[in-house]
């Protein structure tokens, strides 16, 4: 089947997609975007988190066909003036030491980006609830929480690096 959608701001067509495929499979195998990860493929781990029309979804739980005509933002679309061209949330993960094996990282980054667009100054309790759908096996989460605090502080103080992609920015 053929699916037409916007991915990271560009209209793309995926041809020959297996009708049973998920959005995750289509992104990874048909559109050459393997940044969204395949850790559980049943919506438990959040490693495949992407934004679809601005909503945070597990790409593994969205049928490829459901994404037709929609706007999808993946980690590959997040870029900015940070180290090596990263955006502000990505920079905060680097600075806080929130990355170990990194398999959960793209999903966390999309979830944190989404959280901070909804709630620019989240309390720790709010952050924990918002990220409770993302599993990390390496870090014990503290450095990820540090990254959220740092990214929020930098946005509030205006010191965040310029960033494009991801959620709606204020």
């Amino acid at each position, binding site marked *: 089947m053929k699916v037409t959608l916007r991915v990271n701001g560009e209209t793309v067509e995926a041809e020959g997609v297996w009708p049973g495929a998920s959005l995750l499979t289509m992104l990874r195998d048909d559109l050459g975007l393997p*940044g*969204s990860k395949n*850790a559980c493929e049943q919506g438990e781990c959040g490693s495949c988190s992407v934004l679809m029309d601005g909503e945070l979804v597990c790409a593994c739980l969205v049928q490829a066909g459901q994404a037709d005509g929609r706007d999808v933002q993946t980690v590959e679309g997040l870029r900015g003036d940070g180290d090596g061209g990263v955006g502000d949330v990505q920079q905060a993960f680097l600075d806080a030491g929130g990355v*170990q094996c990194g398999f959960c*990282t793209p999903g966390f980054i999309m979830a944190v980006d989404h959280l901070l667009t909804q709630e620019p100054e989240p309390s720790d*309790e709010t952050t924990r*609830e918002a990220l409770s759908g993302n*599993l990390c*096996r390496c870090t014990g989460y*503290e450095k990820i929480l540090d990254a959220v605090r740092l990214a929020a502080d930098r946005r509030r103080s205006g010191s965040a690096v310029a960033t494009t992609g991801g959620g709606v920015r204020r």
Partner: protein
Amino acid sequence: MTDATTTPWTTIPSPNQPFAPAHPREAVPGGVGTNARRPDGIPKVKGEFAYSSDLWAEGMLHGATVRSPHPYARITSIDTAAAKSMDGVRAVLVADDVPGSKVYGMEHDDQPVLAWDVVRYHGESVAIVAAEDPETARRAADAVVVEYEVLDPVVDPEFAISGDAPELHPGTGNITRHVKIRHGEQDVSAPVVVTGRYEMGMQDQAFLGPESGMVLPGEDGGVDIFVATQWMHVDRGQVAKCLGLPEEQVRITLAGVGGAFGAREDLSMQVHASMLALHTNRPVRIVYSREESFFGHVHRHPAWMEYEHGATEEGDLVYVKVRVLLDGGAYTSSSTAVAGNAGRFSIGPYECPNATIDSIVAYTNNPPCGAMRGFGAVQVALGHEAQMDKLAAKLGMDPVDLRIRNAMSQGSVMPTGQVVHNPAPVRELLEAVRDAPHRELPVVAEREAVDIRQLPGGAANSTHGEDVRRGVGYGIGFKNVGFAEGFDDYSTARVTLSRGADGPIVSVHHAAAEVGQGLVTICMQIARTELPVGPAIVLPADTQVGSAGSTSASRQTFMTGGAVKQSCELVRDELLVRAAEHVGVARDGLRLADDGTIRNLADGILLDDVTELLATPIEVEREFRHRETFPMDPQTGQGNADVQFAFAAHRAVVDVDAGLGIVRVLDMATAQDVGKAMNPQQLEGQIEGGTSHGVGLALMEEIQVVGGKVRNPSFTDYLIPTVLDMPTVQMTIMELGDPEAPYGVRGVGEPPSISSTPAIAAAVRDATGVDITRVPIRPDDIVFGASEGRSSSGA
């Protein structure tokens, strides 16, 4: 947030520093001791890091595996005709198609590449297929018809070794290994005696990146393997043997690894994909699903432990008797090493003049068990720490005071007779967690004032504070770093100093697996410190350089770090020889300063740029070995089996909803001796992550095996801690150092996983008064009390 100058934890200097710090000078920028950034960080946050499941090659096929639905059965026939005839299927292979050895293993070659006669566990590989797309491969695997004669599985390890069970591996009596340690007098009595039986369930490593990789057929008839693994050279040996190829025709490159924790020490898809690639002469990729991953790797050994502690009225240990029974499952994997550890560390980091220890690991038809973070030591820490609490209660002593009274220290003797000749700060670690500040914790008595998100059950709204009880518990544990019992443990590093476009550049090549822990950063830091003449890069790990040994046993910073340091030092020596010749002075007295200049004895700058010395690169490849270890005597267990010990302690504070049996961990304080904090930020991440594995083991993580069948192979049913389950971890870091280790380092990865679990079990006992003897602690263990005899494993 931390930087090179501030750390959030307390550093305690050694009370009796036995030697000068290995590196007294200021840190070189980006060198050892700084929070240097991971070189793989940027690609990881951008989604550009190539994990083993992200690989792609022109014309590649997709592999899938046919697995046994039975834990024990005789294969009567395998019919591949229907699968072979499907459109898009390019190969269907069975045991007869294995070109070389049909069995493999890390310790014993006892595990079939593909089962042919008997399957011995649920999920064992029977056939493999390759097809043009993943869905066709899965359907073709389903179309392979395997007929079985189902046999009664041996699922209880006690029955397995009783002599009445069928032998799963002939001639073994189903005993994989029986470790006997006889220390001091064997028939002693003591005025105060406590006994206990303890049980640990089967934990899964639950890394996020599934087993996966790609194999390209080589023009020479060999294979190029790209895989996420922990030890490429041991993989290579096993793959070559099974393919019937010389080792040099099996070339392995490490693909991006999404966590490991021991689960990638054994082979998964390496031989299978290689067979399919050689058969079809096309690249083959295999990516396990999460469900298949639960069948695709070994797990933590479940354990049943019987303890008897005898002590004086004053609280001095007189004797300990221990019997540990481990369920090794269907194949050996690393069971013999696990049993060795469980024996040697079974009484904990305490002095005890007399010990009788039996550590037995059995073959059963349960899933194979092997390496997982802290193996052997994790199991027995539940037992020895529960016993110390029990003994303290019987004596009316404070549990920390009792531990301190019996604490091992430098010069203490292990049950193996080995003298602990390096710092053993057991007392200091216990004091640190006892004295760690208590956080302001949510008050549970005032119903209206409480934020339910901070209570057991959280937003599930299961309590507003009624029947919630608080408890505090302590745990300490220790383990060996590096391989033990006489194993020739070494690592290799090739360091090249050459002239790049912008000046000198240091490249480091080794085969050690970066699995997320940050070794790649540490090696870069070591090169920066030892050769501060230009940027340092770490090349991709592959088998084109000598073995690094496994990324396990908390050993890589010590071993591969040591190899990098040693090779860098030899490169530096050659650089100084060249400098002396170049300038026309004697070599003696020259040194390479931290600013990259070459200086003489008077600290005068002889050369401020070494570039001109590098018309030809300087390259050194050397192996690094730790001090020799020795086997344990088979009858008495005596012997200097270990090279280094690492210690950690935890204090846990929990709230328990005693009515529903739900536990919330409010606070964890830990203290650990790391020898040298090579990269403080990464170190904290190791301790926090290791603690989370202990939290999971204490409260939620268990593979449910019923009648030999795995019932919860998914993240829906196998629960690991989320960010809601993990408290902030308070840390006290000690840097006492091991004078025999590079920079004085001690391995840091495993200790936090050892002491965290018993601390939580103790805290739950303290909160509820219930004699918790089993982890993970189930709600009904708390609500209905004693849990003995309600084993989840077994029939």
